[in-house]
């Protein structure tokens, strides 16, 4: 089972974990991205996330389906936040439940690694003295 969401409201970690928990699973791996207070030593004021919404949902669905093909995983959830986030807030939650932990770890890590490469979502870091679209320039 797969649950993919993009939301401009705060993500709810507990309800994500509740969704993946099931009596035939023994291991759950959860990745939670959080907004750091600094990048390369420079203080971050806030982050802004923009998504190409329908394509981003499609690409996340593809990643989830690939993960379910590659590993024996029962449930995989991806929730991504958009809009303005303050330091400490959560842009992304990935939760994976499997009968055995190795599959949960592998699938969770694959999902976040691939999401960061292919899903059309963009992050702008805002500093005291300016802002930058992350990864835009070489």
């Amino acid at each position, binding site marked *: 089972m797969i649950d993919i969401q993009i939301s401009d409201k705060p993500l709810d970690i507990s309800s994500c974990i509740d969704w993946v928990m099931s009596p035939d699973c023994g291991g759950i791996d959860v990745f939670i*991205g959080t907004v750091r207070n600094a990048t390369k030593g420079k203080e971050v004021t806030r982050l802004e*996330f*923009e*998504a*190409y919404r*329908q*394509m*981003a949902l*499609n690409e996340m669905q593809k990643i989830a389906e690939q993960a379910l093909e590659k590993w024996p995983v029962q449930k995989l959830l991806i929730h*991504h936040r958009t809009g303005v986030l303050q330091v400490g807030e959560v*842009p*992304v939650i990935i939760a994976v439940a499997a009968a055995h932990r190795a599959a949960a770890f592998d699938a969770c890590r694959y999902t*976040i690694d691939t*999401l*960061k*490469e*292919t*899903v*059309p*979502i*963009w*992050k*702008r870091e805002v500093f005291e003295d300016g802002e930058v*679209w*992350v*990864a*835009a*320039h*070489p």
Partner: protein
Amino acid sequence: MKVNVLAFGIAKEIVGGSTVEVELTSDATVGELRAELEEQYPRLAKLASFMIAVNNEYAVADNALQQRDEIAIIPPVSGG
């Protein structure tokens, strides 16, 4: 033909809006669109990379474009 191209992230700033109209030949490909965009907006060529998506899928240079396609400029993604 004229196509409307969606722009996101830094591409929105470079083209000066969330869509940009581009004039192409009627049998234009994604590669030709890229070339046209880079000519009109040289800052696009200075990005680490950019992709074109057609109807919510990443497209390659050979892909033909139709006027009614949903076309988008995808600058380097940075979600997560």
